[in-house]
């Protein structure tokens, strides 16, 4: 991405590009269009609003939806945090954070509490969010029914008419086969008792954090051209059966750095014999705990 933005070629008479892009890359009309979609999405929690996704200077599948949502929400006063898999320093997070540093010249942070906008791929931070924060999720496949019915023409109808029987058939089959609901991430939820929604590929461990969260939760799927949202303090329930209730389980270990017992852990293979240890996936949470000690 650095190359796209910095590349100059005087021979070809191409203008240096840093200066010609608008604040946070997208032009104001595009941002307005996206903000309209966001407002609609907030009004109908969990409903997928089609929007005219733009081509971004990073590939589809690498957070283009989230980046467009963040770009449309950013103001010059914002403080941005970007995480990928919970960490601030994985490739995708670094790349997106630098993108906004460069195109919006805004302050960035790794501290969850200091951020006003947090763009995330596949995790919800361990620390409780507050009413002044926006959490922006990157979404690969926004349609929770997609793996049961690939056609949007059909799934649109199923959502409109709340025909969700087939979703539970999937859970039924899981329990029958394995005694468990087999979905470990992207575990489907029902939002505000109406729309079934894909929470993006967060581990099911994070699902309960979506429920009744004071922060605004926005979801952007660039390639699939969909935006959806959960307004603050909205009921979000994970699908289950009365006698097989949703279980947000995690590995029965604690973090070998900070010792936390209740954060989501990454497994690390520490030597050639395949010995393993576990550390917090939320690097900021882990660092904070170490500092506090």
């Amino acid at each position, binding site marked *: 991405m650095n190359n796209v933005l910095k590349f100059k070629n005087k021979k070809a008479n191409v203008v240096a590009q840093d200066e010609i892009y608008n604040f946070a890359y997208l032009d104001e009309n595009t941002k307005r269009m996206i903000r309209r979609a966001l407002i609609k999405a907030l009004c109908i929690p969990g409903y997928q609003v089609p929007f005219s996704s733009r*081509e971004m200077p990073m590939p589809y599948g690498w957070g283009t939806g989230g980046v467009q949502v963040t770009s449309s929400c950013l103001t010059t006063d914002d403080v941005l945090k970007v995480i*990928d898999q919970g960490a601030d*320093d994985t490739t995708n997070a670094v790349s997106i954070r630098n993108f906004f540093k460069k195109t919006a010249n805004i302050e960035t942070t790794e501290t969850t509490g200091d951020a006003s906008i947090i763009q995330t791929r596949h995790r919800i931070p361990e620390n409780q969010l507050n009413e002044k924060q926006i959490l922006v999720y990157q979404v690969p496949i926004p349609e929770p029914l997609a793996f049961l019915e690939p056609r949007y023409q059909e799934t649109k109808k199923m959502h409109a008419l709340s025909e969700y029987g087939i979703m539970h058939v999937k859970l039924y089959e899981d329990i029958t086969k394995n005694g*468990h609901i087999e979905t470990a991430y992207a575990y489907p939820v029902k939002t505000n008792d109406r729309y079934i929604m894909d929470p993006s590929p967060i581990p099911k461990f994070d699902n309960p954090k979506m429920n009744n969260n004071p922060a605004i939760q926005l979801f952007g799927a660039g390639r699939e051209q969909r935006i959806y949202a959960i307004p603050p303090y909205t009921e979000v329930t994970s699908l289950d059966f009365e006698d097989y209730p949703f279980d947000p389980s995690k590995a029965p270990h604690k973090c070998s750095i900070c010792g936390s017992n209740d954060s989501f852990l990454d497994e690390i293979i520490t030597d050639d014999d395949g010995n393993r240890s576990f550390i917090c996936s939320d690097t900021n949470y882990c660092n904070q705990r170490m500092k506090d000690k």
Partner: protein
Amino acid sequence: MYVSVKGGEKAINNAHSWLSEIRRGDVNIAELNIKQISEQLTLSVDRVMSEGSLYDKDLSALAIKQSRGDLIEAIFLMRAYRTTLPRIGSSKPIETSKMLCLRRISATFKDIPGKQKLGPTFDYTHRLLDFKLLADGEYEKAKIEKYDDKEIPHVLSFLNKEGLIQKEIPSGKTSKDITRNPINFPLTRSERLQSLSRGDEGFLLGLAYSTQRGYARNHAFVGELRTGYVEVQFEIPELGIEINIADVMFTECESVNQFKGSKKIPAQFTRGYGLVFGQLERKAISMALVDRSMRWKEFGEEYLGVAAQDEEFVISHCDNIQATGFLEHIKLPHYVDFQAELDLVRKIREEYNKNEQRT
């Protein structure tokens, strides 16, 4: 204490410098310049403009240079740049019948008003490596007048006069720009054609080929294929005048397909349409065939359940930038998702083992 190793900013920057170095290659070899690419790799430049949907030869050449000749990467650069360009307005519809053709052929009629014109084509060459090109300099000069500057009517318009081919009835509506408005299935034909025109050449070639091999066979001939320059006219509303803003090279293909009739309509040929920037014949023909096969509903044909007939399947998967992005994103870390699955598999196996021991 264990310190985890993760991506890190420094590693990324190092990777980028290395990319820059390797792009340049051996510094003892002269660096490519943009004009060399835009003048000598014209068909690459055309493809990048066409699927990048931005007509600018220099930028296309720059993208090819920057992407180390990876055309999909180059198309991606063009698309990302195109996003940021303001829209001043829409041109008037182009008149391809007024094209200054450098090539114009028909496979359906031998003699046509305006004549067949072969133009610069690989079609009749023997595909032998030409070792003369290893040395510099030598080339043959064209021996003919290059452009006809009179209008050449479309071949299919002759069939049209007789009512032998299905009429295209203008919808009278302005086309919606698919890059500015979200598309919703089912699509209008205009949205379909826009998507196909930007679609991946290889993907459409494969689909078009599958229709020829019997997966929704529709018996296509090239009714007409023409390549040449067309004036693009723009009306300035404030001034109330039209100006010519560019001469753009297009390739247009109209296919003539299997006739179809009913009690009400006597047998008629049907058609498919392809239009792309530059001289991209394979793409234009593929586009026409795939366009035609997706029109089964309109012509009351049967749905045979094959890919080329399925609008949602074709259009959702023909964009190589979407496809490559999503495909390659599986290189990104998926620690969290994998971890969640790992935990679940362990748990299930544990319970399984417990049950095994019990029985």
